[in-house]
């Protein structure tokens, strides 16, 4: 038996292999993590709607369109008739608005691409959070600065629990804030 060969294999080759495997796993895990969590996902929408223009420059309140946000589970993506409140008059000649008018007149809904999603077995409720004074931007990022909306923060259970466990640090703008529930049935049922 050649001792040197075995020594080489045990002392150098094995640790090196293990290191490479572990390093590549860790690097892939962390580098790919935001992508896995959906962070940075900014799909092309059927109409190039700019939140920066509407919510930022024109400072239209989020709730003008997302009417459900203080009332119920869903924030609600606005129906086309809400857009038409203004756009039946405003910027009627712009190509995107012409597209919008076509949708409205043909009675077809707009198939918006979904950006933020919690899994089906989690029952997130917008109104509970918003009525406690939590700002939309805390989870959705500063949408007022986005021409194309993308996911900024991960929507994982860890992300939820980070805030539920330590809201004082995560939501410094709230003077009074209690810990969120951590029990299973608060979200899963």
């Amino acid at each position: 038996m050649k001792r040197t060969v075995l020594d080489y294999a045990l002392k150098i080759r094995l640790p090196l292999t293990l290191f490479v495997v572990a390093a590549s796993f860790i690097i892939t895990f962390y580098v790919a993590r935001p992508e896995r969590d959906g962070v940075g996902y900014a799909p092309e929408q059927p109409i190039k709607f700019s939140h920066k223009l509407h919510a930022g420059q024109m400072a239209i309140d989020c709730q003008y369109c997302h009417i459900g946000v203080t009332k119920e589970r869903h924030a609600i993506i606005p129906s086309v008739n809400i857009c038409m409140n203004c756009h039946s008059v405003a910027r009627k000649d712009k190509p995107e608005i012409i597209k919008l008018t076509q949708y409205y007149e043909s009675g077809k809904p707009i198939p918006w691409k979904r950006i933020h999603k919690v899994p089906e077995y989690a029952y997130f409720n917008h109104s509970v959070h918003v009525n406690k004074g939590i700002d939309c931007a805390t989870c959705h990022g500063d949408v007022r600065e986005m021409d194309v909306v993308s996911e900024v923060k991960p929507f994982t259970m860890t992300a939820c629990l980070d805030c539920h466990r330590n809201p004082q640090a995560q939501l410094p703008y709230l003077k009074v804030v209690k810990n969120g529930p951590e029990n299973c049935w608060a979200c899963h049922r």
Partner: protein
Amino acid sequence: MSDSPKSSNKLWKSIKGYNDDPEVLNAKTNEFMEGVTDEFDSSKLSGISRRKFLAILSASAALTATACTDYRDKGEIIPYNKRPEDVMPGIANYYASTCNGCSQSCGILVKTREGRPIKIDGNPDHPINAGKICAKGQASILNLYDPERLTDPFELRKKTVWKSVDADVISALNDAQSSGKEISIVTGLITSPTTKKVLNDFVAKYPNTKIYSYSLTNDQQRRNAWMDSYGTDEYPAIKWKDADVILAIDADFLGNEGSSIENMREHTKRRETNGKTNFNRLYVAEGRMSVTGMLSDYRLRVSPDSQYEFVMALINELNNRGSAIALDANSKLKFEKYSLSKFESLVGKDKLNHLVNDLNANRGKSIVYAGDTLPKEVHVAVNLLNEVLGNTSLYDYSNSFKSLVKYSSAAEISQLVDSMKNGKVGVVIHFDSNPVFTLPEDFGYASALKKVKLVASLTEAENESSAAGNYSLPINDQLESWGDAYVRGGVYSLQQPVISPIFNTRQKEAVLLTWIAGGSSAFNEDIYHNYLMNSFNADVYSKANSFADAKTFWYSALNDGVVKVTEKVQPVKFNFASFNGLNDLTPSKDFVIHLHDNYFIGDGKYANNGWLQEIPHPVSKITWDNYAAVSPSTAKSLKVDSNDLLQVKVGNRSLTLPAFIQPGLADNFISIELGYGRTVIGEVGKEVGFNSISLMSKDAQPSPYIFSNASVTKAGGSHELVSTQEQHSLDDTFVKDFHRIRRIIQEGTVLKYIKEPNFLHEEKEKLFSITNEVQYTGNKWAMAIDLNKCTNCQVCVASCNVENNIAVVGKEQVSKGRVMQWIRLDRYYSGTPDEPIASNQPMLCQQCDNAPCENVCPVNATNHSPDGLNQMVYNRCVGTRYCSNNCPYKVRRFNFFNYRDSFADSYYENNLTSLVNNPEVTVRSRGVMEKCTFCIQRIMEARSNAIRDNKPLKGSDIVTACQQACPTNAITFGDANDPTSPVAKLRDHNLSYHVLEELNVKPNVTYIAKLRNTHSEEIL
């Protein structure tokens, strides 16, 4: 074996083998077939090795997975184009409507989410059913999403279009009219005045039309008796809550007879244990074991054929002690020959004395009530008995039972069949009815139907009658329909669609209106809607004396679902001729057969509803079947056991069905439920149970449901009946009255309770815990169930099924103990098999503070929440089932399969049926445990509303599905930490107890012990 040609083979696989073919003999001696062991030529094989093939396969799969899917894609959100003002995705809308399930036409409130109905509950504004409906009504939502509903009109089983159907039928109608042939409309009971108008219009347009109305189970005998006694067939409601003593004679008024929801509510108003006890006393004289019999304080075993004698003897006995009405001499002659002494040996002298004394002592405050299946003669006698006792003050004429279209007599239906046979009928229209199944066979309806040129069946799903005809025309489900109902005096109920028709169906009245108009072009979606509005304005608006204009009145009536108007009550007087002219009925010498309505599937209408088939029978707990119930001693004399087949013979009609030994039944008596044994039906209801209509006859006298002098023999063979009672059982069958010894059931009597209100807690042991107790500082959810009020109706089970997306598992899985219902009703017997005392107990997850299930879960999938709930997390569950094993109450349910997939070949796994699911509750798949959650989705909704309104969350904000559905409000839910809440008060009630308290698991479901209103302080 002597005729075997060559050898003495006993078993053979093929004819060649039987004839000892040499080829076969050769094959037998050689282990391998010729050529099997030859070397193969590798050059002729494919160049790709197995390993390479797999490599290519996986590489291509991986490539497809990465290249062709956008794994970050999260789908689309499709908002409305123009959102209706009152519809918010995520918030439920409620619409008031009317149920078409049975003749009672209860007011319902339909919950819809994003435009699809997901739950039906009672309409709280409805004066009759006051916010509650029966199990059928609860589960009927599944019929809307039944995968085997007719989607299009069919002509001879081939899909066609309405236009051609309309043209064909209208020309056939015109032909029949011009050639003088009859046009027959066969319908069930009509409860809608507007439908009646449509039928009248139809008759006006086609004067040869005759309307036939038939219903398998009905109140015809009662109506006939009322007609004879009082000159009107509109009989009054009973003021149950004013009755101190009730004698029910084969009447399941707390089960499935008449306005049972109303009866249950009014009856249990006299079962309150708060402060004063004002209990009524319920006597039940019956042959079968009904729900009402189980709830009785005294149960007298009297077979239905003897009921006439029994009532006559009671009249005689009580008249001797005085009468509230002056009797003529002829009447006295009629009843004087009957004496109660005959019944002393049968039911016991004590019971009989108590009954007579109680009725005598409570004249004017008692009621005798006969069942729908009993012959007219008994009803007339009961009418007189109530007159003698002065009980007519308990008749409530202000909301009497109306009659819009009278049922056709057997003679009229026979005449129809004769005309059909003689070719005198040109067109038969089945107007949402199934006469081929529900009519007794000896009418010969099915064979006569073949002589009719055009048979159009308006039906939701293919049935026996539509299969026998040439046109199957799909009609709207009740949730897609307009309509109205006028069942009770002064109560007009409205029905509105809550979803537009899912398929190419039409409202059944609209079909007739199109035919009346004489052309397919007359049809539009609103044809009946407009007709109804006009009719409502003309009939109801004019009566209502409203200040509002007609349009406002219509919309407010639609919103409320019901309009109440005051109607004049005509005084009535008992007509002695009806009593004096009665044919005396004599008891049977041989077996008595009693056919009666089932509890859940109606006249077979709901037989394709898996939820309803799977709800256990309230008494026997049998699912997916009907059976011949026999008493233990009759079973012994017939030498049969449960499951053995019996042949029941009445005249020349016979039926073979399994026996079931039912404690408490009368001897030489068999009770069978109707409505089972449908043949042309969807996958669920096919061949479920036995068609007992085959025992009925067109000329059965005096009652179509009771047969004297029948013969019953053991048929040989058996059929497995599946009951849920022996499963999830807390008791040990080898120990008698174990449920009392272990104090699972704790009961007392009213006398005892008055004397010692705290009798239940006298010998209470002090329990100590070996662990530190968790303190609950916020809300702590708890439930209390009042066993005095629970009537065992199973509505909670149905409501829970719908609310919590509970799967149907099928008969075979039920037999393995895998039924998935989260709440069950346990039934215990004590006493003797002949005179059992039944105790019922709803059993659901007790949400124990020291839950034993939590300690044994290896993955912490079940654990405790800060508000005192025992949480079950599906995503963590790995399916060890340790928790279920360790649960002392046996309330955990395991998904042995993905039941939506495994039941009846994925019957309920399709895009249509999944619309019935509650979007707020996860649909569980295979391999996870589940159990009652105290309707956590409703708790969380109340919590979010409380946060929105900036109010503290209170227990009264939450109503669980079972609580909402309970017709008697036996279930209370709330916050145990709030001392003012009803549930906290009930936890401290004198009669409160926890099941298996000595285990110190600290359950959060409190039971209020049942009190029996007997003359003794002891129960047994």
